């Protein structure tokens, strides 16, 4: 469907990458009448043909458990990716750790993502004004809100009107109903509320009603398949069942897959001419040109591209006069607490799969305490909660494997099947000087393109936050009469490695000042206005609210502006 030969000229805009930021840019521009060429490093991909929605564990190798080839399990959507991509290494500074998840497929990481889509709130866009740390965005919530509305209409989501501070709800008529909560979610809610912690209906980019469309019809969730496999019925949002087919239907979209972009080619000091890419199948290099170039290759790939595009006019990398490209690298803070709840043992079994993702979640709630300086960390987190009837898998061992055989073993396994709860902390990381990506002068990938070297160090802000999360989750588990499975963890030991939550961002941040930021309020490089960045690299800050919805909303906003400018003759 999308594999067409690239014309070397004739496109108005070249988009590098087809994930959240790239596919939204393609959708927004093509429907505005702009001709677009999308270059995707990975192969073409069709979820309707390739997702094994109902494949069971025993039908796949190793009961579908993760391997180095498929870290999230055999059926996971990710193609040619994972923590390592063969032939495409990255390096990390000595004694530091950063994990970089990539995929090489049409639609990028939208095929596999959590799909939790909170909006950033008014505080989140103005963090410096609120607590004096980091930097304010050059846009406010009120400016972005209409773009959230239209993004949510096309993406589709479930959500409720929770009415919480700094957690904007969708206007009526957009969000689909949230699926009914499950037993363990109701129990967590009861215990959390008793401790003054909120637990409310979640927001996920999953349809619970059909979404008819002539080009890209999508069906309501049918409550069984894990969303990480991708969704052939289109219930769980991914670019390949929505934005990309919709863009293609305009007749103004050309997609070239297996096109690994190596650098931005310049026409003059402040004007991009196009990009040079490597055909991954032949190894040949091609140059394509257009009026504007949008980088949406994922935050780190985008900053790598900019740094690798240095030239006589841009000695530190294209549009990097501020020195901020590759800097301010953030991920989402990750923490984990598990509990065993005796009260949930032996309970009546029912179908508890639901919609795979949490139907309830715990949003951040201590704004007042933070403002009053009562906490030793400045920003918020939320808990994505889990549990339910889970089958014992091949890694069953230790305390999960009773020292008995026969009827006693069968009875114990059945009794314990639904006794676990999980609290996954997702928190805001504040950019710091120790976390950044640069070009490693000594290592190249198999295409000869210099690779990234990562530097990473958590600050006390994040470690204190995780400790607070551990204390909170443990209190909730205790209130449920349960025991904590990781009682000895501390903030320092529990915090996940950098990159692990797969929310990298910040490496070409937006801002109000060209001296301290790379992009202006419309995602345009200050120094090269026809070069835009619409992926997570643009994040001025990375609130605990998962970034994909905001990436898409700002991509649309930026492309709406770009389309208008092109139509008025800009960049001709």
């Amino acid at each position, binding site marked *: 469907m999308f594999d067409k030969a690239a014309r070397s000229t004739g496109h108005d805009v070249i988009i590098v990458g087809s994930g959240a930021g790239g596919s939204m840019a393609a959708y927004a521009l093509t429907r505005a009448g702009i001709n677009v060429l999308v270059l995707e490093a990975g192969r073409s991909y069709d979820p309707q043909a390739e997702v094994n929605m*109902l494949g069971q564990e*025993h039908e796949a190798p190793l009961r579908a458990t993760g*391997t180095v080839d498929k870290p999230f399990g055999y059926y996971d959507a990710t193609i040619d990716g994972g923590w390592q991509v063969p032939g495409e290494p990255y390096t990390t500074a000595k004694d530091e750790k950063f994990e970089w998840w990539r995929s090489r497929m049409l639609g990028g990481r939208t095929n596999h993502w959590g799909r939790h889509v909170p909006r950033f709130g008014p505080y989140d866009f103005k963090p410096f004004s609120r607590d004096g740390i980091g930097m304010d965005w050059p846009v406010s919530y009120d400016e972005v809100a209409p773009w959230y509305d239209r993004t949510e209409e096309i993406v589709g989501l479930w959500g409720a009107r929770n009415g919480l501070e700094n957690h904007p709800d969708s206007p009526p008529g957009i969000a689909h109903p949230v699926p009914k909560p499950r037993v363990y979610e109701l129990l967590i809610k009861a*215990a959390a509320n008793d401790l003054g912690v909120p637990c409310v209906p979640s927001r996920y980019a999953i349809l619970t009603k059909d979404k008819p469309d002539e080009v890209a019809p999508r069906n309501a969730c049918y409550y069984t398949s894990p969303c990480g496999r991708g969704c052939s019925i289109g219930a769980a949002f991914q670019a390949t069942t929505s934005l990309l087919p919709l863009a293609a239907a305009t007749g103004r979209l050309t997609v070239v897959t297996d096109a690994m972009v190596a650098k931005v080619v310049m026409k003059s000091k402040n004007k991009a001419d196009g990009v040079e890419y490597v055909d991954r199948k032949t190894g040949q290099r091609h140059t394509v040109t257009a009026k504007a170039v949008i980088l949406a290759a994922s935050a780190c790939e985008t900053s790598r591209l900019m740094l690798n595009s240095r030239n006589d006019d841009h000695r530190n990398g294209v549009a990097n006069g501020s020195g901020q490209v590759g800097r301010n690298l953030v991920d989402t803070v990750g923490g984990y607490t598990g509990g065993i709840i005796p009260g949930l043992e032996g309970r*009546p079994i029912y179908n508890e799969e639901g919609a795979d993702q949490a139907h309830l979640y715990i949003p951040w709630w201590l704004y007042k305490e933070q403002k009053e300086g009562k906490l030793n960390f400045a920003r918020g987190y939320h808990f994505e909660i889990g549990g339910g009837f889970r*089958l014992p898998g091949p890694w*069953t061992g230790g305390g999960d494997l009773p020292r008995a*055989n026969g009827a006693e073993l*069968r009875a114990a396994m059945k009794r314990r099947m639904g006794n676990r709860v999980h609290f996954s902390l997702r928190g805001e990381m504040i950019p710091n000087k120790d976390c950044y990506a640069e070009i490693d002068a000594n290592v190249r990938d198999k295409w000869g393109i210099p690779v990234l070297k990562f530097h990473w160090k958590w600050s006390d802000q994040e470690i204190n936050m995780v400790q607070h999360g551990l204390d909170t989750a443990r209190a909730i588990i205790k209130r449920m009469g349960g025991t904590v499975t990781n009682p000895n963890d501390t903030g320092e030991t529990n915090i996940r490695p950098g990159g692990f939550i797969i929310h990298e961002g910040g490496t070409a941040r937006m801002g109000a000042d060209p001296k301290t930021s790379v992009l202006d309020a419309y995602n345009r490089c200050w120094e090269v206005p026809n070069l835009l960045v619409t992926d997570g690299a643009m994040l001025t800050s990375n609130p605990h609210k998962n970034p994909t919805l905001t990436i898409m909303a700002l991509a649309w906003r930026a492309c709406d502006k770009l389309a208008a400018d092109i139509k008025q003759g800009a960049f001709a």
Partner: protein
Amino acid sequence: MTLSRRTTLAWLAAAATAIPAVPAAARADKPVAVTALNPQIAWPDLELPVNAALGYGTDPDLMNPTAPWPLLLSADGRKAINILGNLILPPDESGPGAGDIDIAAFVDEWISSPYEAQAGDRRKVINGLAWLNAQAGKPFAKADAATHARIVDALMLDPVPDFLVEPAGFFGRLRGLIVGGYFTAPEGKAAIGFQGNTPMKDYPGPSDEAVEHLKGLLKQLNLPYPVV
């Protein structure tokens, strides 16, 4: 925190799920039972050949899953595992035994895997099968039921005598594989009563019975039933 400390913690976490290879006396205050097994039969510690097989790669056909690697277990080895499968999870009214569904086929696929994550299990199972044969004085699969039971009973002791530390480590891991393989097979899912993998138009939420149970639990915990 340094990388080495993180790595160490990861090892500790991994080790916490394994049966510790320390003498029985150090592991428990309970007295060590006398077994009918021959303590002179040492853990074999066989030199395993390099497993040069390839994995399924980073872009396998998800609609037609296959494990492309050759299997390593002998026919007798697989028989032994199915016999053990039926001793660990014998048939009952809830479903067939683990051996009855040929759980050895899964164990063979698992321990023959070319991935590093399964290499430790391969070492345990191949040595363990050799040790079982030595204890039985013939291929374990060809020994009588009394011999099978005697060996399994000894390996299930808590704590085991020192000479059984490594065999019991193998057996504990094999039990994990058999349990995990069984309850992720259709027969095992049915036996444990799992409900799922069923497309439905609307998600009904908890059954009436499940709600009643939750109400009882909340009452016990002195918590109100939450309003969502």
